[in-house]
């Protein structure tokens, strides 16, 4: 086995961006071109490597961990934590998605630097974020996972806190007035940290109380660890659930998301929506279900109910929004609700639906945030009431917005459909032992949610794209999409269509892996 | 006993010296009074030396040391007083509270 397949490929994919961040920071502040090219180079190489990995991946053995190191590489020997990495069919699509989105973010940033300018630090933060995201998807050791999971917080905190929205807001309840970016950044950081503190507690309990004294996901899975926990298992799952659910975010732990998205700079929103939200759902699939199958079964109804409440709730909240970006942010909560519904069914169809839902949401909502960013870049407002006639002023951008909104409402033939439809499909026949009437009710309510989703997206399109442009824009000279924007968006458009028409791009990797995982966890 | 007279003389001289140090305002006179006190000590040293029949005459040797040191001390002391007088146009010790700093 070549060293490429022996851990090095993944290591390079994960850590090249971090090296790139250091390199960018070493370049003098004035040389912005050099900084951009360096950032693009490192992110690009990381992406190309992940594509090579995707091509070399043995799809016939998608359920096996591949590309991991042969031998055990001790990391923190004292607690038996190892540098255990590897990918299987579940993590592969998400890994490629994360490197892909990083490259596109850097391309988009080329001439869209939020205030205060400073491309140097900003691109370094993107690269650090990339390391965290990719690392989370390849980590097979709980402590390693935790570290990567937390690494993403810091760059995102700074992105929101420094480059974020400077409008003043009055915080509900507190009555304090502060800048949006500060409130959002702190809320985001503390909220997720709160969750992950519990998650870490859960990990520690798995280590000490399961009797296995290991952090290896593979050794812990299969139910042995859960049996070792005995009565503690329910609390451990609760801790893990809290950590993951905050990150997803599931209702009612979602309120950091709209604020963070609204305040974040465009690229921050894109990466937040496209990848960061997936860390939570991925953790459910990768950690919660395989390691604690029995508790997953006990908790599945709760997760399912919260997911569906989230779908309806977020859609209704969307209807009330006047700010375009905030609307898209709330729509994320709804879409992640479908993903979680799929996971809650605990069937291979449901989890498959969840993964394709994650990928599709990453691509589509990422693109929506790009668009919202570019539009507010031109109009200097995100108030939908003031926009309108965008289709006339910026026809290409309006067209792309229309296409993406259609994809987001789950139009069949585009990527968003599979996740939505198949998670409903899975809810009809959940895992044996789960309440069938409950899940079928959830299916019907979730299906009603698709109507509401269509409603808010179409009304958004009507407000933003259609009608005559208001007089205030007529004297402005508007520039339609530029080259960098197209370069960042066209790949996403193509991916949306490609996955929609040929979902095997994702299913080809995931189906076997998911089936095997479900079989391992629940037998049969 | 013969030593008593010497001791009384020493005590008297010392007391006069103390009185001079405490009462006189002129720095030169204060110095002179200090010399008186040293002289009183010298008398005591020599007197005890003889009285105790010291085999190596330590008392007398100490007296010589004291005289030497006193001479040096007066030299430096007068020089300081002179400098103070030059700077301050006065040698009145009441006005000299530089040590308070």
């Amino acid at each position: 086995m070549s060293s490429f397949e022996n851990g090095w490929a993944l290591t390079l994919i994960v850590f090249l961006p971090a090296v790139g961040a250091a390199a960018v920071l070493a370049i003098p502040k004035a040389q912005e071109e050099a900084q951009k090219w360096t950032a693009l180079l490192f992110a690009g190489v990381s992406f190309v490597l992940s594509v090579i990995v995707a091509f070399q991946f043995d799809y016939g053995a998608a359920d096996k961990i591949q590309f991991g190191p042969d031998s055990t590489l001790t990391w923190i020997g004292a607690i038996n934590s190892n540098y255990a990495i590897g990918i299987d069919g579940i993590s592969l699509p998400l890994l490629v998605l994360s490197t892909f989105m990083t490259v596109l973010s850097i391309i988009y940033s080329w001439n869209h630097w939020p205030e205060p300018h400073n491309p140097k630090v900003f691109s370094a933060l993107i690269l650090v974020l990339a390391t965290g995201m990719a690392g989370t998807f390849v980590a097979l050791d709980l402590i390693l996972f935790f570290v990567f999971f937390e690494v993403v917080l810091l760059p995102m905190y700074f992105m929101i806190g420094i480059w974020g929205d400077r409008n003043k807001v009055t915080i509900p309840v507190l009555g304090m007035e502060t800048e949006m970016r500060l409130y959002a950044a702190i809320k985001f950081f503390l909220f997720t940290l709160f969750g992950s503190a519990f998650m870490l507690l859960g990990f520690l309990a798995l280590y000490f109380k399961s009797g296995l004294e290991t952090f290896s996901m593979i050794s812990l899975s299969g139910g042995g660890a859960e049996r070792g926990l005995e009565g503690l298992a329910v609390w451990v799952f609760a801790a893990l659930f809290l950590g993951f659910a905050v990150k997803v975010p599931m209702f009612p732990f979602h309120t950091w998301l709209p604020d963070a998205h609204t305040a974040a700079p465009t690229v921050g929103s894109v990466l937040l929506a496209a990848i960061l939200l997936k860390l939570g759902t991925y953790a459910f699939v990768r950690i919660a279900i395989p390691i604690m199958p029995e508790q997953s079964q006990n908790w599945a109804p709760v997760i399912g109910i919260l997911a569906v409440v989230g779908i309806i709730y977020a859609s209704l909240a969307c209807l009330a929004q006047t700010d375009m970006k905030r609307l898209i942010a709330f729509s994320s909560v709804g879409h992640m609700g479908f993903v979680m519904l799929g996971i809650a069914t605990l069937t291979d169809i449901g989890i498959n639906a969840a993964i394709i839902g994650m990928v599709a949401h990453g691509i589509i909502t990422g693109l929506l945030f790009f668009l919202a960013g570019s539009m507010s870049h031109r109009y200097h407002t995100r108030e939908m009431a003031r926009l309108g006639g965008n289709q006339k002023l910026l026809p290409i951008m309006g067209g792309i917005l229309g296409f993406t909104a259609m994809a987001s409402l789950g139009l069949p033939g585009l990527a968003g459909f599979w996740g939505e439809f198949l998670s409903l499909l899975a809810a009809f026949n959940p895992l044996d032992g789960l309440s069938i009437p409950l899940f079928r009710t959830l299916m019907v309510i979730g299906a009603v949610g698709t109507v509401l989703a269509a409603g808010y997206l179409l009304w958004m399109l009507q407000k933003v794209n259609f009608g005559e442009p208001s007089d205030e824009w007529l004297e402005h000279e508007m520039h339609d999409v530029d080259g960098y924007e197209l370069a960042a968006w066209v790949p996403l458009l193509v991916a949306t269509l490609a996955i929609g028409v040929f979902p095997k791009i994702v299913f080809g990797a995931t189906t076997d892996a998911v089936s095997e995982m479900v079989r391992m966890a629940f037998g049969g | 006993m013969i030593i008593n007279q010497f001791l009384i003389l020493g005590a008297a001289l010392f007391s006069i010296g103390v009185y001079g140090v405490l009462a006189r305002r002129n720095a030169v006179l204060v110095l002179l009074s200090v010399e008186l006190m040293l002289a009183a000590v010298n008398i005591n040293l020599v007197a005890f030396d003889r009285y105790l029949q010291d085999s190596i005459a330590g008392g007398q040797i100490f007296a010589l040391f004291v005289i030497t040191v006193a001479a040096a001390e007066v030299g430096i002391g007068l020089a300081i007083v002179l400098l103070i007088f030059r700077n301050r146009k006065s040698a009145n010790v009441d006005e000299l509270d530089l040590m308070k700093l």
Partner: protein
Amino acid sequence: MSSLLAFAAPLLLAAEDGAPKEFSDGGVLAEWAWLIPVVPMVAAFAIVFIGKRSPWKGWGLATGSMAFVMIYGAILFISNLNKGITYEGSVAIGEIGTDPYGHTLGLEWGWMVDGLSIMMYLVVGLVGFLVFTYAKGYMEGDIRYTWFFASFALFGGGMLVLVSAPNLIQLIVGWELVGVSSYLLIGHYWEEHENSSAAIKAFLVNKVADVGLFIGAIIISLSVGSFRFTDIMAVIAEGDSQSALARFSFWAGVAIFIGAMGKSAQFPLHVWLPDAMAGPTPVSALMHAATMVTAGVYLIGRLFPFYNTEFFADDTRYIIIIIGTLTLFLTGLLALVANDIKKVLAYSTLSQLGYMVTAMGAGAYTAGLFHLFTHAFFKSLLFLGAGSVIHAVHSNNMSDMGGLRKYMPQTFWTFLIGSLALAGIVPLAGFWSKDEILASIQYAGQNYTTAQGGAELANFVLVVAILGAFVTAFYMTRAVSLTFFGEYKGHGHPHESPKIMTYPLIALAGFSVVAGWINIPGVIKWFTEALEARFLAPGDHHPEAINFGLAAIGTVAAVAGIAIGYFIWFADRETQKERDKFRIPVLYPLLEHKYYIDDFYMDGIVRPLRGPVARAVDWFNGHIIDLVINGTGWLAVRIARVTYWVDQRGVDGVFNASAAATGGTGGLVRLLQTGRIQQYVFLIVAGTVVLVAGFIIF
């Protein structure tokens, strides 16, 4: 597939002529039929990207693709008449896992070539081609000419994806593609808020119905363990009353029918269709004739054995009949008060769709689809004729028309033929199909059990259907009178439309005359035989001969409608609105407000949801959930302040106090240091004296 035919064999044996029907697989022709949906879809995309530089700015590509479909469809139709074709091709696009029964569920794209889909290919291709041709004249000079043809090609392509679907997933894909392209086309003039609202309404009403389709598709496919129609039909052919599909069939049947109600605009989900007139007239023509509204009827046709087999969804049929009957009668009445000529036609479409659905519910597969077939021709003809009129007078309102037969003779004559065909006058197309529907309902009334619709119900429905035929003739007479007779009431000088618009009218008028002749009971059975080419025979009843009694009653109803209409409206010179109030007493306010259904939807559902409910949720989000979050933050800050106070005053106090004590003492002691040597000496002496005194005393 061969195992499937084995399942189907017993039913095939039961077919009319008693001998097993053999079908061919269609050979190369069927193998390449995937081009039928793909060509228009590719054309649609091509027009988006290179349309402005292509010949005729996109019209060429769009119409070319439709011409291709028309020719391919015609060839298939003819060879299907020779010998029935049943063929199914597919390409796997991913597996999604296994269901609890161990079936591996796979996703596929595919193409179905059988009697039903071939008929639809022909209708879509033929009507599409003519409408596209007409649109070149109608849309000349439009601001988004190229974009219009891109959406239009997508509309046709989406319908063909739907029609060619061999599995439920692809059907849903095509279903929604039709929905989205109708959204684009209805909202074509999106500068006006009304138009984009109509587009959204169409999309959302359809989306509501799609919930039904989704759920129905999920139930059926998971019960069967496959998305393929052939697998579903195989389960039905077994006829096992204990199979999973049989157990869920009632709910699945209802859910699927709800889906069909959306696209086929059945009462009470019909509200989007009249508003959909906001789009350009060719869109209405295509939408009402060949694509979109026929999808629901097609869907029931595709799943017909499911609805027509005992133990399966046959117990949902009375629901279908009731809905269809309500639609055919209630919406027909609405056409009586509409002033907009396109709305008159829209309500008439609703009414005719009601006929088709009623027929399907009565178990008359061929009759329902035959009406779909003939209706496609005369309804597109009527819409294109209306478009031609609108093109000439620049208004949709009949109060601005009148007397146009003198100015636009070709439009007038073709429109008249279309109206007569719609009214069901012998020997035009509508007569044959409507008569067959009436006969089928009568048959259902005589033979079906309660579960399948019920005899009394069917007899009642028959009466309503005949009344409906009267109403149809009545409102068409009104439309023709107000538009073409009397004095011209509009502005300017109307003139006949260009040839590119009138030739399609003439062609369609020709089809409106002859289309019915391919299925004359007892004489020509081409259409019936063509539609029988299915993997599983639909198993419906065909009348053996013309039922002269029913035909006479139907014709009398239609003629009566025309006659009464003639006396009331013919040669009327004035605006109709005020008079309609007298002519249709009591009902008028109800009809004027469209039975208040729209008002109910808007004020009862949409506005509350978008307004108070949404705001309440948003408020809840900001004030209740965030109350916990921000409250925690607030509490943390308060606790922190207390802690800080304790820290500053308590913990730090100890250290500060000792420091202060040290400082104070130092301040006191420092008083001793005067700097006066004499004082020091005094103190030394005094101290010595005290010490000496102490030694002496103690």
